């Protein structure tokens, strides 16, 4: 046995070392040498070295304060990194230097939409339209729908205007007007089954899924399930504002009383009910999440999460991420404090109860873990992962009958979703045969229902 175990250890060490050392020694593929500092900054950005890219772009813009390209590059990278004040400053400077530059105007408008400054965005779009020749403007504003597809194809900047206006109308909650606009500019066509197309794309790249569901929402007002799933998908992605609008729209339009009730519950326990989350706060949260998960930028992410919390104190998600960062750094007490703040901000947050339960479980504070995990499955009865976590906590406290009941319920539910959790089944079989063992039961967390997997 010794040797078998040593083999496992040796393999693990070798694997770990090889992976780690291999990654460390890996050389990036040679690229064409950058022709300028700005090119170097953009190459770094393309390579995913975002912080380095922004630092370079700052130097370049400072050294060339009259270069529209340098100022716009800095603004774009700052926007991408969630440094919104800096982005605004440099977009404005670029626009001041090139007031009729279509690209600068468009990016300024797009940035305004990102931070929820819709009136400002519309003003910019009007300026962008004004740059087009008179006959093009006339056609864009007055020509029948059958001419618009070709017009937008020939003038991509016009399509950009339409798409941004669709976003603005949708985000402001005026879905009817957005649908009229989409029809008027042939963005959606009658008779198309956009919903079916969107369902086919489930699991595709994010942008593709996003576009497909967006079209379904605009083109098929009666496809309530699709609108509903769009809302839940957006919620998973972190777009809580639009997600809430879509879930509410799907619930409003559905004929099913059960679905209406489910929608109300979803908004309450998953999207903070009617707690206001300004667009800027939402976007800061989204970017902070990326800076942490993608870049490992703890300081930058923490600062943006904190800013998001300042702008939207009742928005539970950034607190949960601050807790995650603390826990990842080994500060479990700090994580606990963040989660408790999250719960004060939004007592019905299913995710917060779930995270608290799991954290208390890790701290072996089982009674508190049980309390929060019971609340978790009470809020969302189909949460099989939460139920398995509850089962584990019950087992740890010697509540074996309750453990078996919850674990079996979760296993039965997951079987319907083709998630067999064999490790849990195996554990239950042994438990039934031999009684309690020394190890705690496994508590996997399979992602089976869209809208309940990420924050």
């Amino acid at each position, binding site marked *: 046995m*010794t040797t078998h175990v040593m083999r*496992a*250890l040796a393999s693990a*060490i070798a694997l770990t*070392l090889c992976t780690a050392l291999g990654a460390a020694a890996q050389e990036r593929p040679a690229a064409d040498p950058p022709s300028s500092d700005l090119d170097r900054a953009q190459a770094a950005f393309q390579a995913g070295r975002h912080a380095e890219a922004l630092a370079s772009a700052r130097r370049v813009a400072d050294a060339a304060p009259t270069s529209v390209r340098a100022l716009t590059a800095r603004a774009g990278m700052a926007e991408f990194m969630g440094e919104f004040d800096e982005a605004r400053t440099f977009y404005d400077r670029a626009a001041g230097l090139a007031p009729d530059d279509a690209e600068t105007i468009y990016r300024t408008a797009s940035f305004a939409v990102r931070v929820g400054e819709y009136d400002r965005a519309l003003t910019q779009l009007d300026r962008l339209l004004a740059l087009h020749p008179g006959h093009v403007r006339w056609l864009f504003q007055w020509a029948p729908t059958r001419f618009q597809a070709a017009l937008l194809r020939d003038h991509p900047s016009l399509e950009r205007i339409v798409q941004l206006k669709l976003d603005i109308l949708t985000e402001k909650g005026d879905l009817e007007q957005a649908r009229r606009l989409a029809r008027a500019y042939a963005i959606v066509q009658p008779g198309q089954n956009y919903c079916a197309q969107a369902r086919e794309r489930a699991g595709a790249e994010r942008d593709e899924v996003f576009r497909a569901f967006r079209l379904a929402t605009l083109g098929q007002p009666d496809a309530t399930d699709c609108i509903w799933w769009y809302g839940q998908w957006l919620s998973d992605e972190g777009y809580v504002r639009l997600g809430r609008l879509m879930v509410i729209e799907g619930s409003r339009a559905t004929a099913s009383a059960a679905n209406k009730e489910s929608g109300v519950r979803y908004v309450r326990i998953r999207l903070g009910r009617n707690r206001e989350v300004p667009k800027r706060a939402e976007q800061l949260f989204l970017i902070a999440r990326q800076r942490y998960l993608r870049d490992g930028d703890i300081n930058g992410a923490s600062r943006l999460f904190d800013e998001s919390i300042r702008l939207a104190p009742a928005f539970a998600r950034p607190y949960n991420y601050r807790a995650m960062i603390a826990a990842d750094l080994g500060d479990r007490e700090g994580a606990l404090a963040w989660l408790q703040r999250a719960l004060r901000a939004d007592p019905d947050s299913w995710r917060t109860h779930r995270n608290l339960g799991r954290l208390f479980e890790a701290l072996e504070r089982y009674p508190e873990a049980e309390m929060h995990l019971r609340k978790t499955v009470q809020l969302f009865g189909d949460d099989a992962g939460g139920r398995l976590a509850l089962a584990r906590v019950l087992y740890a406290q010697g509540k074996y009958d309750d453990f078996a009941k919850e674990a079996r319920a979760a296993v039965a539910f997951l079987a319907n979703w083709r998630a067999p959790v064999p490790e849990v089944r195996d554990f239950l079989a042994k438990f039934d045969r031999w009684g309690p063992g020394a190890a705690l039961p496994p508590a996997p967390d399979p992602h089976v229902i869209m809208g309940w997997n990420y924050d």
Partner: protein
Amino acid sequence: MTNRTTVVLLLGVALALAPATIDAGTYRSVDAQGNITYSDRPPQPEETRAPAPEATPVPEVKVPDARPALGAKARDVKASAPPTPIARTGPTKVDELLELSGARAQLVGLLNGLASELRPAPGQMSAKDQASVDRILRQVLRHEAVYALVRDAFLLHVDRTNLEATAAWLRSPLARKIVALAIASSEPGTEQKVVAYAATIKTNPPTDRRVELLQRLDWATAATEISADLVAAVSRGITTAVSGAGPAEQRLRPGQIEDRVAQVRARANGALREAHMASTLYAYRGLEDEELAAYVLFSASEAGRWYNSAMRKAMVSALGRAVDQTAAELVRAVPLDRWRAPRRLRRSR
């Protein structure tokens, strides 16, 4: 696997009083004051003396049917000295418990094995770097220091009633016999013996009851799980240190490290489970079914579960801290670019 790497890691099993995994190069000696020392070199004549005889009678075993009789199979097992019971004058101390269970001895073997695995092969790096690595391994993976971590971590989980029940079991003739078998099963050449034994199993398979008892033992002690936890702790320490020492843009965030550790653990768990049956069949071939049943019964008792749980936490915590420090110091002393791929990978190419 070389002799120097024939070490202990199966603390899961070992600490659960299952087959221990003592390094072939681990030696136990008792000095003139009765202090027990473990070392990876043989005791010298002047520093060794015979263990003192037991000062107190062995307490009554609280496990039913714990018959001390040795069967025919047991006589085939090379006799190995079980840990010497410590004289009792009051409540059992944690040190005594760890001594009785063989955990302390097994820790030495584990650390020796770990150091061996982390030590670069000759020629992998410069002599100076090699010397730095050796020095760090000697200093940080020092047996007594890590043992102190284990003891301190174990103390956090002490439950007096369960501790005394466990100690009573460990002082029983049957438990001592099991520890002896565990030691015997970790002597040099065990791997070959297990392989040979596994071949005989094909023609002379174990009884269903035997298989059931061993499966149940693994369930009751969580031996495989504990071993996988230890592998995960080692993986975590190495990954964290190497990632932290690498270029900033390639560093893993803590959550990503945990994901990788989970993958390593899952892989190790599978391998450990596969090896478990043959290894335990070999290690416990000297036990009668009734003896094994008694062992299972203790392991499944409240005291047994407490002991295994507390030991699991203590070992994982202590080993994790030791590996964290070791790995951090290694990559600080010898930068990553002066390490080459581990020898195991190079050999497999």
